């Protein structure tokens, strides 16, 4: 099973690809709403990509209050 750090790195790569930002332009503790300028709808699109990538279900209510990649990765890791 991958570590939380490995999951964090994968999530960052997914976000970079999904939102078309420069590689290395995002870091684990970034507030993705502020850093990417996205709304809840766009966050939901990222959630779909994450679920498809990791083959997990992550109920959207588990993401309430989650704004940084590191915490998001921890929630994903708990579902692996």
């Amino acid at each position, binding site marked *: 099973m991958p570590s939380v750090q490995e999951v964090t790195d994968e999530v960052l790569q997914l976000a970079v690809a999904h939102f078309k930002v420069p590689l290395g332009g995002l870091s684990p503790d970034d507030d993705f709403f502020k850093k990417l300028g996205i*709304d809840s709808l766009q966050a939901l*699109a990222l959630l779909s990509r994450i679920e498809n990538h990791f083959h997990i279900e992550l109920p959207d*209510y588990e993401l309430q209050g989650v704004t940084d990649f590191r915490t998001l990765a921890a929630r994903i890791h708990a579902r692996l």
Partner: protein
Amino acid sequence: MNNFQGKTLSWKMEARVIELALHHAPHNEIGSAVLGELEAFAEALASADNNCAALIVYSELASGFSAGADLRELHRRSQGLSATEKTAGVRDFLLRIHRVLNTIDAAPVTTIAAVHGITFGGGFELALACDLIIADKTARFCFPELRLGLIPGFGGIPRLKRDIGNAAIRDMLLTGRSFNAAKAQAAGLVGQVTGEGQALAVARTTATQICKFDSGTAAAAKEFIKPIPHEELRREIDIFCELFSRPTVEEGLRKFVESADAMPYLP
């Protein structure tokens, strides 16, 4: 059936297949403008000749199929009205949208919802009126109404009950969480999952297959297997209207309209 180009949607018929395209920015919210054009579509569909074999409903917008009812319009139109007037207005809207969805539900052609992205609330209910749902892997299905103190009002629960198991409905309805395309397929809601951006193409291929069958036989099969749950649909309107008159709904709608976010009830 003549082609139509409206402000919120358009339709065309080609090779026995009708395509209904939703294009009401930002997210195909279903308010009075969409409802009016959907009513025109339902009227045209009901009087379409026997040459039609299939209908595909899809969205031309990148964000998804539809975010559901136009809650901002609903809130705006409720301002300054008495509780009785508010409820009467909502009931009238629900009766109208139910007539449209019942027409699509019972249409003597095979109907396909080709969905992507957000397919929420009333948008999900529009998809549920169709015979088949083909979803690309970005699709998310959700009934967020409980977050506002309401239940789905466009026929969602009775139609879901017709299609899938009760436990899956409770999971979706009582948690308010969204199902991705794979989950929705596992629940029996979605027939086919496609790659990103491929739902319409797959729906067209499916429609081509449908066109090979005798239309009368397909219509008879559909009528036999897909009864409309009229009594439950009427009960749903009553429950919705009872809930709508409560202060918690007013508060939920107020919070919704005061947010600049597209879907303020989401994390």
